[in-house]
């Protein structure tokens, strides 16, 4: 009985790939002047501990809590509004991006969407501060712009992957493209689009929380403010508020998505 030959254990290209990855990782560590040893000196540990101890107990005075509530509301509004605008614009841009208006439009819009989503929200916020001034407005716009890129691309892909039968049937029977869209495509795709949007909202609440660090309002701005004045206890309260807000929105969005997909 002839033994089957074992496949070569090491497929050259896979080994080369793994070696390249390893090289990347090592190069990263070595090229960064990471101050590992400094991190663990007695001095550093002591000052870190003191720094951390300054956070307790978090500031819980009533007037401050009201400010935090206002900041939380501002952050929530930024994220909700930004995501909402992105939803509408995303659908609008997804139409050409899914090829319904020809190949040229598709490539162009997809390029635009890529640029919008490649640039992180924070960078958008910094740029838009010039036009919109300090405060949550800039943050909302930054979120809207970035999320339009993300959702537009997701929506376009989802629209392209829909089974075409319902829409083409309507078109064959004489309906206009817009009508076919609203009557056939949208109902089919809506649960998935909403699911993506809600998932993106979870992400945007985190983004909104931190945009303030560059001046775009909300809890982030409060955090930066208190940290720069070394008011650690207030800063701790803000951080806790952020975490609670994020976890609550995560849970709410998860529940909402289950309901949408469950029915």
């Amino acid at each position, binding site marked *: 009985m002839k033994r089957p030959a074992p496949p070569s254990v090491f497929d050259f290209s*896979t080994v080369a*790939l793994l070696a390249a*990855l390893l090289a*990347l*990782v090592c*190069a*990263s*560590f070595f*090229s*960064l*002047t*990471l*101050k*590992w040893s*400094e*991190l663990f000196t007695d001095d*550093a540990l002591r*000052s*870190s501990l003191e*720094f951390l101890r300054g956070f307790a107990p978090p500031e819980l005075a009533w007037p401050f809590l009201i400010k935090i509530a206002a900041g939380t*509301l*501002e952050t*929530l*509004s*930024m994220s*909700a*509004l930004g995501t909402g605008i992105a939803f509408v614009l995303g659908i609008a841009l997804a139409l050409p991006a899914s090829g319904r208006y020809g190949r040229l439009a598709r490539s162009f819009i997809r390029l635009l969407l*890529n*640029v919008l989503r*490649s*640039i*992180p929200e*924070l*960078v958008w916020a*910094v*740029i838009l501060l*010039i*036009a*919109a*001034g300090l*405060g*949550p*407005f800039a*943050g*909302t716009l930054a979120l809207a712009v970035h999320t339009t890129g993300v959702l537009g691309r997701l929506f376009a892909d989802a629209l392209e992957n829909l089974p075409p039968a319902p829409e083409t049937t309507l078109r064959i029977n004489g309906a206009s493209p817009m009508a076919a869209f609203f009557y056939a495509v949208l109902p089919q795709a809506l649960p998935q689009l909403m699911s993506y949007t809600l998932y993106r909202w979870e992400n945007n609440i*985190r983004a909104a*929380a*931190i945009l303030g*660090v*560059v001046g775009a*309002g909300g809890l*982030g701005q409060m*955090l*930066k403010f208190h*940290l720069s004045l070394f008011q650690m206890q207030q800063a701790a309260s803000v*951080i806790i508020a*952020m*975490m609670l807000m*994020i*976890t609550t929105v995560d849970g709410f969005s998860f529940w909402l998505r289950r309901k949408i997909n469950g029915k």
Partner: protein
Amino acid sequence: MAVAMILLFPILVSGEFKPWLLLDAQSLGATGHFLASFVPPAHSREFLLLILAATWQTIAIATAGLTLALLGAIPLTLLATESLSVSRMESGHMRPAGVAIRQSARWLLVLLRSVPELVWALLLVRIVGLGPTAGVLAIALTYSGMLGKVYAEILESTESHVSESLLKNGSGRLLALLYGTLPASASELVSYTTFRWECAIRGSVMMGFVGAGGLGQRMDESMKMLAGDEVSTMLVIFVLLVACADLISTFLRKRLG
């Protein structure tokens, strides 16, 4: 729908949503001026070299941070996964000690995940000083939470028949995982990890704005000086960087999956 409409007004007010602001003369003037300075983008040789170094630093921060996150996530994932529990196999529910360990691992993962990485970076910059160390640690902390959570979900959603069979025949738990569950879930795990690497690159740019080094820090400096030409070059480089990372990640996903 009605609820959304009712909420809209307070949301608009709270968010100080005043689109007309965009169009007032002063704002338009400032915007116009800034945008005009974008062209031509700065392209002097020293500047480009500087930017290249900063770009590499960003990539290095992301890669180093993600590697540390992986090292942290793996033990947490193993602790948090239920499907390898021998006591659950025997009687339908885990021993109290096992439940306690699993819950603690899950809470730790949630904690690591809920604090936005920028906040970690802000705090770390004050502890370890300006520079890439803060960025690497911030990514390591947040992403180990994210990786751990998704890895645990992937492992638990993989069919456990194969690994349970190995467990029932006396194999050790880690080996049952490696021989039983991993072949099926490897591609999903790799896919998510490469996706997170892309996110880490974006994240490390953002952290540069609070002083954690890399392209972000450079961009922050140029923005403060309203040097539009430098900013536009960096934006272009950044978009290219993300596109390349996307390509590499897609390639890795196909090959290692």
